[in-house]
């Protein structure tokens, strides 16, 4: 039986966000490659082990510094407006309840880790998202907000010097911008991996909005690459046929 899982606003903002993040990260890395370091001229920077090592070109977007800057400064508006629409919707529609951290989340996250590590047999009971997922979806907008604020801080370090100063000055704001990008990339890569390895059925739900609860990871008792395909209906108490994965 199909259930409505994602409102169309969530679905649209999700895919817009996907395009915006890919272009912002790619063009940002191209901009970074014009000076792949953080140190002020004549100084040494403490906290980046790869100073002056450029990011591989295939990970970048925009081809040249000027082109990447145009993409970055155009797409930033899409990212911000889209993010605000999403957050406003999640707030007004009450979906934030599925996403904000609660007291039992640490315990539940630990149970999920145990389950994924085969230290627990059954998938922990969950609401819309499991505890690890929930944490990731809660952290992503925070990393996004940090990326936007540090981005503004290095876009306008003189006109908005108070903001730049809040992040420790231009050099550090640029560093935090990089770290925020890394956090977004890590969360997104893990998210995409888990979608394919645990819940590929959620892709359809992020397109059509419909989801079949009997295919949920909890119903399939699914770990990464385990029980990807649903169990056959067991009407009679016959043992299930061998799974093919």
């Amino acid at each position, binding site marked *: 039986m199909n259930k409505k899982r994602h409102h169309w606003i969530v679905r649209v903002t999700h895919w817009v966000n996907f395009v915006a993040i*890919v*272009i912002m990260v*790619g063009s940002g890395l191209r*901009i*970074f490659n*014009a*000076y792949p*370091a953080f*140190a*002020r*001229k*004549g*100084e040494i920077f403490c906290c980046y082990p790869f100073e002056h090592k450029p990011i591989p*070109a*295939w*990970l*970048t*977007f*925009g*081809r*040249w*510094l*000027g*082109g990447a*800057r*145009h*993409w970055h*400064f*155009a797409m930033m*508006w899409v990212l911000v407006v889209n993010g605000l629409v999403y957050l406003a919707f999640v707030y007004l529609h009450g979906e934030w309840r599925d996403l904000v951290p609660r007291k039992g989340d640490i315990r539940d996250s630990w149970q999920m880790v145990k389950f994924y590590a085969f230290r627990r047999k059954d998938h922990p009971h969950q609401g819309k998202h499991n505890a690890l997922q929930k944490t990731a979806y809660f952290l992503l907008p925070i990393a996004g907000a940090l990326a936007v604020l540090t981005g503004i801080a290095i*876009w*306008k*370090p*003189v*006109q*908005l*010097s108070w903001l730049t100063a809040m992040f420790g*000055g*231009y*050099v550090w704001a*640029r560093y935090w911008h990089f770290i925020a990008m890394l956090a977004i990339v890590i969360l997104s890569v893990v998210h995409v991996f888990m979608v*394919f390895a645990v819940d*590929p*059925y959620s*892709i*359809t739900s992020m397109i059509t909005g419909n989801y*079949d609860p*009997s*295919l949920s990871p909890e119903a399939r008792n699914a770990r990464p690459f385990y029980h990807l395909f*649903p169990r*056959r*209906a067991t009407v009679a108490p016959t043992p299930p046929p061998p799974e093919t994965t």
Partner: protein
Amino acid sequence: MRIVRTGRSFVSINGMDRRDFLIRGGSLVSAAFLAACNSRGPKAADKLLKYAERKNISVERKLFRHTAIDVVQSGAHDAGNKLPSYYISPTVPVWDESVRGKWALEVSGLVANPLRLTLDDLQKLPQVSNRVNHYCVEGWTAVETWTGVPFSELARVVRADPQALYVDFQSFDDDYHESWDIESAMHKQTVVAYGLDGKMLEPAHGAPARVYSPVKLGYKNTKYLTKIVFLPQANGGYWTDMGYEWYGGV
């Protein structure tokens, strides 16, 4: 699109089952990504990017405040000889007096009192020294002290017309020039600089004089100045015409 529900939970879309859909969809997305890698982006986006740049300029000009000044962080070191030197000529541009005569800065355009100012003339005008950041388009910064005439002082002595909303800074480094909005030029940290770190400017950094302001990215700060022209309209610039942002403000 025909969606058929078969049996208990298998969905087939146009004859594809879910597994096919995932595999085909996945390869399509990966192919799109590989094509996008290190690309310039679709040509069709150029118009949108131009539109975004125009909108960004108006946002940036609205954000601009004369009261916003650049402050060097405490503890920041001067770049000294680590300040990169660049020019577009094949070698360091040097003003050769034996060929070109005595260097003078022409200040003209929409002004009531056009002037030709020698280096001595410039040094007789009110002088300021600003220890400020240099913001390069590439992402690095460098702290230096620039000494020179505030641009606003020059605008006063030439009696710039209120119609002059733009200024073009031109040089003898090939045809390098960059035009600015007047408000950035009138910012109190914008100077026509002839000194760097307490010494006269050297050819490597734009001698005899260059414009210097922390409110603009490095490439907007024309070195090797020959002319300052007050204009009713913007006049692009060397890097601007190459495709960098015209505004280039920080």
